[in-house]
Every structure is written in C-alpha cells, then in structure tokens.
C-alpha cells in the first residue's frame, strides 16, 4: 500500500493498448524509478498516473483514495506535480515568473517556498530576472523542477529529467532530487540513464512492453545479473 500507486493499469492513447496491466507505486520520502527499453511504456505509465490516458482497466490511488477518474488539473490541486521531458519551462517568462506560475493555485504566501527553491538551486538566484529561454540546459531543468516544487506537492513526477544534460549536471540534479526526497516528498522518475538512476532509487520498476518485468529496490536490481545483462549493458 503505497502513497501513490497505479494498480494493474491497462490502456493507451487512442485505440492501441500500450500498458498491459502494469503496477507502479511510490511512498513519501522515497524515490521510485521506472526504467526499461524504448517503447516499453515508461512515460505512458506516468501519464496514466497523471490522468492523461484512457484507462480500460486498473485504478490509481493517492493516499488511499481512488483518483482514477478525476482530471489532471484536479490531481495537480491534490498535490501531484509533474515535470515534462521537453518544453518544461515558460521560455518567454523570467525565472521568478516561472516559479510564480508554479504557485498559481496557491492563495497563501509562497515566498518561503520560493526561498527554499532558491536555496536548493542557488545558481538560479542571480538569474531570477532573466527569461528562462536564455538559461543553460541544466539551469532550465532546475527551473522546471523548481516550478513543480512551487505547488507544494506531495508527489513529484519527472519525465527523463536528465535527458540531454552532461554527466556532471546529471549528478548534481540527482543530488538535488535526493534532497527533495528528504523533505518527505514522493518522487517518481522515468529515466534513460538506468544505472545512475537505480543507484539513488529506493524502488525500481523495469517495464517491458507495458508490463512489470522486475520490481525491487534499486540496489537489488543493480545486483540482479539478469537485469544487468538485459537492461544495463552487462
């Protein structure tokens, strides 16, 4: 029984079924990583949890409550934040405005949250009045994560946050994600860089053709010879 979980999910975008009954879950203060080959339905599984998919079967629960049928926007209101893989910042708006937009739904004073984001990503402080499109790839990713954190979420979902950034930036970003986890947020990531991601994961899901192939702790999956051979390149 996890904080956020999708059980036995089946469905796809149009006619074709992409998920054939996979189950994914994450608890607060935990990092869960979805890995697997291309076309395994990793991002689709995440979209199912966000309510952007037509599910034919299965259910999604948040904190024990069934949220299978409610809209994406309502899920955002209930504390699920999402960082898309691409186009995840408002390019024409400043860093600060990006963060403010993250807090759009909040009616309380969110300055302390913003201070926390700037603490987490100090590099953004001096760029706060610059348009997000002018930042480097890594910093843009920081803005994207920061925007998501501004909603004060209980769950943070990231779709391939390290796609296209350098290894140094990736390590840095993973460090930050571990810090976010320590604040008691549930983190669910889809990752291409499976080895590094499983390294920091409390839970790992290896998806193949829309089904769970292996499910275990990150360390156990890294140690599993079959997983190593098939998915981690030896």
């Amino acid at each position: 029984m996890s904080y956020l979980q999708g059980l036995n999910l089946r469905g796809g975008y149009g006619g074709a079924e992409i998920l054939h009954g996979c189950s994914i879950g994450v608890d607060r203060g935990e990092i869960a990583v979805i890995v697997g080959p291309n076309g395994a339905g990793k991002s689709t599984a995440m979209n199912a949890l966000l309510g952007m998919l037509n599910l034919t079967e299965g259910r999604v629960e948040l904190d024990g409550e069934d949220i299978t049928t409610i809209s994406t926007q309502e899920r955002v209101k209930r504390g699920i934040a999402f960082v898309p893989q691409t186009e995840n910042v408002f390019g024409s708006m400043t860093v600060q405005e990006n963060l403010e937009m993250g807090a759009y739904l909040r009616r309380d004073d969110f300055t302390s949250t913003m201070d926390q984001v700037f603490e987490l990503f100090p590099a953004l402080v001096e760029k706060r009045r610059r348009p997000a499109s002018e930042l480097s790839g890594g910093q843009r990713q920081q803005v994207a994560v920061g925007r998501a954190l501004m909603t004060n979420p209980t769950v943070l979902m990231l779709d391939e946050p390290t796609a296209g950034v350098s290894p140094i930036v990736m390590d840095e970003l993973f460090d930050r994600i571990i810090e976010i986890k320590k604040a008691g947020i549930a983190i669910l990531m889809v990752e291409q860089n499976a080895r590094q991601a499983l390294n920091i994961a409390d839970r790992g899901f290896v998806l193949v053709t829309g089904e769970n192939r292996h499910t275990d702790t990150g360390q156990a999956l890294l140690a599993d010879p079959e997983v190593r051979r098939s998915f981690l390149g030896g």
Partner: protein
Amino acid sequence: MTDFINAFVLLSNFVIIPALSLGSQLALGALGVTLVFGVLRFANFAHGDLMAFGTMIAIFITWWFQSLGIGFGPLPTALLALPFAIAVTALLTIGTDRLVYRYYRRVGSAPVIFVVASVGVMFMLNGIVRIFIGPDDRRFADGERFIVHARTFRETTGLAEGLTFKLTQGITIIVAVVVTIALFWFLQRTRMGKAMRAYSDNEKLSRFSGIDPDRVVLVTWIIAASLATIAGVLYGLDRSFKPFTYFQLLLPIFAAAIVGGIGQPVGAIIGGYIVAFTEIGVTYAYRKFFIYLLPESFEPSGLAQLVATEYKFAVSFVILVLVLLVRPTGLMRGKVI
C-alpha cells in the same frame, strides 16, 4: 531659421500628428489581434468587424445620452459611452466563443479551421452592424473640435505655416498611451496577466501549473473586445464611422501585428506606428517642405511624392510582404513559423 521651423510645423501638421493618431488606432487594433493570436492561436478575421460592432454600440449609447442631455463638457460624449460599449462587446465576444470557437478548442481543430470560423463570424457581424446602423457614414464626435487651431497658431507664433491639432487626435494619443500602459501592467504584474502569458507560451505546462484555460480564454476575449471597441471609437471620432472602412482596417491591423511580430504586444504597438508613418509618410507630397529647406535652385519641380495617394492602402501590404520575405517572425520575433 524660420524656414526650418516652418518646415517642421508643416511636417508635424500633415505627417507627424496624423500618423501618431492613426498609429495609435492601429496599434490598439493590432494589440487585440496579437493577443487573440497569442492565446487562442489563430488570426481573427472578424477583428475589423468587431471594432465596427463596438463602435456601433458606442454610437447608440452616445445618441441616447445626447437625447437625455448628458454631455461630457468639452470632450466627446462617446468617451462616456465607451465603458458601456465595451461591456456589450465583451458579452458578444464571450458569446461567440461559447457558441463557435470553444467547440473547435475542445476537439483540437487546426488553427486554419478557427480562421474559417472567424470568417463566418465576420460575415455575421458585418450583417448585424449593417442591419442595425446601416452601411452609411456616421459622425458622432461632439464637444470641442480643436486643441490648437491653424489660424490661432499662425497668429500667436507669427509663422507662415499653421498647425492643427484636433481634440480627437489628442484624445486618441492619450487614450492609447493609457490603455497600453494599463495592458502592460496587467500582463506583467498581475496573477491573471502572467497566467495569460504562461498559457500563450506553453499551454500544456500551464495546465500542469493549475492554470484554468477557460478563464484565460475568457479574459482574453474581454480584453480583445475592450481593445477593439476603444480602437474603433477612437478611429470613428477622429474620422467617421462606416462599416466598410472598418472591415478594411483589418488589413493594416494585420500588417501591424505581423510586422511587429505576432503574439508580441510590444511588436503590435511598434508595428502600428510603422504602418501609420509609412502610409502617411510615403504618400505625402513633400514639395512645400523642400521649398522651405532647400536653396531655390534645388527646389523640386514635381510634388515630391513617393507614391500616389490612391495607394495609401496598399502601402501597408507592401510592408507586410517585405517583412514576410525578409523576416517572417517580425521585428520582435513573434512565435509563428
């Protein structure tokens, strides 16, 4: 020296002041087009007729006020009617969105379908305006006519050239400045304004941030209606109201929006003035201007007019075509293409 001042007064009278006032009207129109484009992502062919509709309502309210004996002192009564006209026009835009555009948004139609729909709305508005007020020319400006009168100016300054500054031109420029500042304040400083920019920038991400698309669209239509009505009333006060002219205004307004970079409010304003200044600047006969400035032997023999006045209207398209050729995204790097 006097020659120099005379030349400047001449130029102000026939080029600078009229162009500033026309530019302000076009800029307000282009702002409406550009906002609709930025948020709803289609070129609204009905904008000219929307301006005509708003102006028509303002004229009706003005007539009503006049019949009640309500005036605005030296200012035109139409300014008093403006807020009411804006309210009615906003109801119209919200209504058309509900009945027409919302459906295509829901089913995710291509932008070009929205354009075709806006052609339908254009036809209907065209008909409505002509049915209610008729196709003829209407003048509805009252109050004072001049801030500076040519004769008074000549008498006070002793210059050979007179300067006319009509009250409607003054109002146009002031209102345009005030409205623009208010709009920019709204877009840059308020929560809703920022949400609009966010939605225009990245619709999907704005949904993940909890921004309600329906609200953004609603506010956009209200602003578009306000801008169209204000631009239309100012244009009508300055010149006169005729439905067909307003339909034709669509073209310079599109030109202004594209020249500036569509989807970019700053661009719309710059574009408005560029179109107005070129239109008036190239069709003005500079003969007298050069006579003041140049020594006698260099005086031009002809009118010293770059383009015949009949082509005033075509000028904005030539600018448009040039921009499309050289820099399709416009001066401010609009979002298209």
